[in-house]
């Protein structure tokens, strides 16, 4: 089951004695340091993970997570609760990352990759690892590494759709591409990930045999 966009809080449930998010927001509006930190603690992993997946760079991800929280905190006095706080923070974080990628002139959706993809990622493509099945569960660390090695355009669509739970129409708006383009990029990203994971398993199997 894919997580929804609104479900942005940390995996652990708050204890009964901890203040609610609404309370933290109200206290943060009054300049309460603990409330700012409380909100940060609730959402830091999700925001930072998003930044890290999109950039595949720890230092950049830290800077972007910091920027996302700061932008949010600067506007917190205007928060009226019409939408979920987590949704607000999440959209803002995505915007911060996309702005950063655009500044770096990295393709948000790469046409080049799309073109290459028709050859490279055609159904007949074979990395020589096709006999390795991805049976059972997929190791999180391996998937993480594979996502990091995706080209930036594929990575962004995969992160937004499959990790963060955005729909294609939302991605199309965010990334400024067509819905069809978003769908086709996602499919290619998944196919590429499958290849990468299979290659990884084939290499490991080879090492085991050699060992």
């Amino acid at each position: 089951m894919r997580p929804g966009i609104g479900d942005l809080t940390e995996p652990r449930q708050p204890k009964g004695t901890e203040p609610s998010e609404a309370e933290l927001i109200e206290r943060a509006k009054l300049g309460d340091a603990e409330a700012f930190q409380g909100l940060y603690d609730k959402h830091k992993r999700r925001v930072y993970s998003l930044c890290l997946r999109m950039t595949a760079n720890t230092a950049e991800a830290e800077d972007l997570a910091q920027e996302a929280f700061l932008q949010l905190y600067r506007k917190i006095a205007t928060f009226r609760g019409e939408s979920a706080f987590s949704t607000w923070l999440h959209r803002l974080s995505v915007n911060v990352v996309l702005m950063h990628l655009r500044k770096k002139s990295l393709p948000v959706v790469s046409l080049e990759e799309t073109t290459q993809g028709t050859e490279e990622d055609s159904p007949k493509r074979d990395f020589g690892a096709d006999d390795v099945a991805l049976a059972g569960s997929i190791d999180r660390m391996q998937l993480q590494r594979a996502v990091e090695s995706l080209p930036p355009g594929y990575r962004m669509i995969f992160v937004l759709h499959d990790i963060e739970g955005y729909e294609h129409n939302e991605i199309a708006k965010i990334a400024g591409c067509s819905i069809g383009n978003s769908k086709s990029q996602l499919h290619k990203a998944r196919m590429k990930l499958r290849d990468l994971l299979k290659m990884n398993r084939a290499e490991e199997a080879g090492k085991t045999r050699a060992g």
Partner: protein
Amino acid sequence: MANKRAAKLVAIGVIVAGTLVAESRKEYHFAVGPRAGVSVMNPYGSIWVKPSLNNTVVVNAVLHSDKVEVDNSQNGNRVDIQSHLLAGADSDSGRVDYEVLVPADASITLHSSTGSLRAEKLHGDVSLEGAGAEVDVRDVSDAHVHVKTMNGPVNLDNIQNGHVEVDSLSGEVTMRGVNGPLVQVVSTSGKINYIGDFGNSGEYRLTSHSGDIEATIPEWTSADVSARSVRGEVHDDIPLQPKNHTWFPVDKGRAFAGTMGRVAVSSTVVLRTFSGKIHLRKRSENK
């Protein structure tokens, strides 16, 4: 006479026993995941962080009196340790010495006013703030290393591919085998010693207002070097290819600028002082 000596011994014994009773040890264990965050805040006393063998954080604390307690908390992958001073605690009775084992990939934040800080064999981020005592970081790779100190000396040894930032008011800063994309030291009066190769195509910026700056590097170093002392002297033992353009007037004896080695893979090295001396030395090769 014998009675007096016996009385003295008893008195000493009472004092020693009292001290032993007051000193206590605590040990805490925390299970953490990859890339955990560990912070230790300790106003008085040393903190030494080393790698653990598995995904656990082990905290050994020696409390020097009952006027200090150790607060600890774990919030997911983050562990916070803090010396909690009780009423009447001072720099002696409030002292706690910590030895902390963390997974090598953990990020650590250490803070002590009077105790030494030491971190070794890690590849997570290291953030240390001291005041008067020594700060020592060694065998750290692929990490941010941030150090702040007032007058305690700072030793950085074998930091590979680091993002190193040191702020020292008057403590001497010594770096051996330190390289990475950014190595920056800012000091008011502390001496700065760099022994290494300015590698990794990084930016090396060493600045002290009145402290001397000495860099000892092999002749094969590839770097774009500029050095300037406003009121002090500069010495250069290594021939540099002169540059056509600099940001500042290159007064002989007060500044030099040039390149050495292969320009394509070179690092940028900026050495600045107001009244200190700058010396770029050639390292003798034993190989």
